[in-house]
């Protein structure tokens, strides 16, 4: 068996997740030794034609062209892995889903008529079947390596889906929520970052998206008790994973009070 062919695709995104691959400085050449980097415009001019064994897909679907293009990507890919918040839940640009896009366009562009875009930013899985979703904004380097390693070895990636709190406690952090009264989304957020924010004396802001079995409503009530107002609750659940169902439901539950 030859080396598996890897392709890296980009949709609406910041490039941070694919940069994570280039940031694997110690392992980049080892990865290149195990997989054939067949399509990765950010890193190489060379293009090897599909089909591809593994496609990493960054970014969300925000235009009709992209909705079409992702179908082509899927057709050419044996394994399709989405990387990052944009690709798995629509990303920060999914905030448009909560507003009027025409208004959005006119805020940014003098000639909104030049801009063609969809009303929503949607995750890749809303368009094509996805084999694995790697969460994070941006994704974690070690987790990306695990996903690639698993793909090379033909096994399922081992990415725990529990809360950030697990990592926080394993690291020996002091809980900022309990000890300092700092609002923290760690209890409902997917692990992977290594509990970065609490390690920096900050509450988690949920950039890895919802964990398995999240209870956002209860956390919302708890945050309210430590002083987060309705607008604040709507905002914390409506940022980098605004369109992830668990977070969207919770943020929308505050709409009435915020608007009223």
């Amino acid at each position, binding site marked *: 068996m030859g080396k598996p062919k890897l392709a890296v695709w980009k949709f609406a995104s910041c*490039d941070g997740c*694919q940069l994570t691959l280039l940031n694997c400085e110690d392992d980049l050449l080892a990865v290149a030794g195990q997989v054939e980097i067949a399509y990765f*415009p950010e890193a*190489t001019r060379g293009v090897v034609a599909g089909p591809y064994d593994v496609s990493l897909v960054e970014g969300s679907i925000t235009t009709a062209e992209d909705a079409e293009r992702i179908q082509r990507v899927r057709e050419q890919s044996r394994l399709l892995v989405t990387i990052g918040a944009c690709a798995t839940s629509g990303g*920060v640009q999914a905030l*448009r889903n909560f507003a009027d896009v025409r208004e959005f366009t006119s805020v940014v562009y*003098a000639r909104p008529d*030049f801009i063609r875009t969809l009303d929503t930013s949607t995750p890749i899985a809303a368009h094509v079947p996805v084999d694995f979703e790697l969460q994070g904004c*941006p994704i974690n380097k070690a987790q990306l390596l695990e996903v690639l390693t698993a793909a090379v070895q033909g096994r399922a990636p081992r990415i725990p889906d529990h809360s950030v709190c697990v990592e926080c406690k394993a690291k020996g952090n002091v809980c900022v929520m309990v000890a300092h009264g700092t609002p923290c989304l760690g209890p409902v957020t997917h692990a992977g970052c290594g509990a970065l924010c609490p390690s920096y004396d900050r509450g988690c802001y949920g950039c890895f998206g919802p964990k398995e079995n999240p209870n956002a409503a209860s956390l919302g009530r708890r945050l309210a008790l430590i002083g987060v107002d309705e607008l604040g609750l709507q905002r914390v659940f409506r940022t980098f994973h605004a369109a992830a169902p668990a977070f969207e439901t919770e943020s929308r539950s505050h709409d009435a009070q915020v608007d009223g």
Partner: protein
Amino acid sequence: MTHKSTGDRLLTVDTLARVEGEGSMRVEVRAGEVTDVQLAIYEPPRFFEALLRGRSYLEPPDITARICGICPVAYQMSACQALEAACGVSVPEDIRLLRRLLYCGEWIESHALHVYLLHAPDFLGYESAIGLAAVMPDVVARGLRLKKAGNTVMSVVGGRSIHPVNVKVGGFYRAPSRAELEVLRPQLEEALEDAVATVRLVSTFSFPDFEQPHEYVALRSAYDEYPLESGVLVSTGGRSFTAAEFEDNITEEHVARSNALHARLAGVDAYVVGPLARFALNRDRLGPASSAAADEAGLGAEERNPFRSIVVRAVETVYAVEEALRIVDGWQGAAAPAVAVPPRAGVGHGVTEAPRGVLYHRYELDDEGTVLDARIVPPTSQNQRSIEADLLRFVRDRLDLDDEQLTHDCEQAIRNYDPCISCATHFLDLTVDRS
């Protein structure tokens, strides 16, 4: 199929490689004359300025970081500066230095990425750094080492290198101790050697003869420092204006083919921000090692050949490393990780030097700190006109080349600017139309 003739030609590159983001290029040649050059940014729009409306003034550093994964720190720095200005707060010196250190990390990482992984393969004739690694493993290893040093600085100060978590309006969530920064020293010392070696390497590349006439715009710091996190805007045309006067001097316009906005400097057609501009306007502010490296590389008072921007970028990398070392050495911890920034109604402007050049933010807040309006002008949209102007002249002089070579050279010319299309919305796709 190659035509070298003067006839009609159309060169296109649908997806420009080794740039950050997605864009395309199109060059049209009719009857031997270059009639049109376009750099189209088709990266889908993400509407950051709109989605910032209604958010808390404490959120833009985290939200705007997501505009660009390559230079998130630049967004965080410009946002903090603008928001602190809006609220009438300035940060103490220790916080300013810590920000500078974080920024140095981003410069080292971003410049190493561009020099080694994106641009050097052009000069050495490879499609990618991975291909290059097969023949020059030491060179690529050095580039990766350097890049990693930058990432390590960002991880220690900011928590991680992409979208750091430690930055907030008013300073940081937690300031590192002296001991925490000291661990960076050995890696930075190695990086200094690597950065100097990088200047030596890239100054041996062969560069096409090409001079550009554009006006250069960059920051000039109030301190005796090369500009990073603060300063006033100055230009080779003798202009000088503050962040607050940015929009009086620079306006953005929207062109049909692009999802990015083009910036214009009042009174001129095209201007340039980024390493060449910074260097020309701040050569006297380099540190000892970077200054010596610039001399050794034969750089004069200013550099007008955009192809030689790789040399300037390498010199700036030396500067960022020596500056990081200076800050680490002097670090005694911060009195407090952040200063309080109570909200107030008003408008604030911020300009800092992203690796690719001047990055401008403006926010208008109400008295509770809700963002009423936001404006962001990234470096790539400022450089876009210059890139196109350069391409036009560049192609005109090289019509004798076949399409493949010409396209390749055009791409290289675009990469001179290290265009970040994620910022300008995102990337380039080259179409050369000779038909």
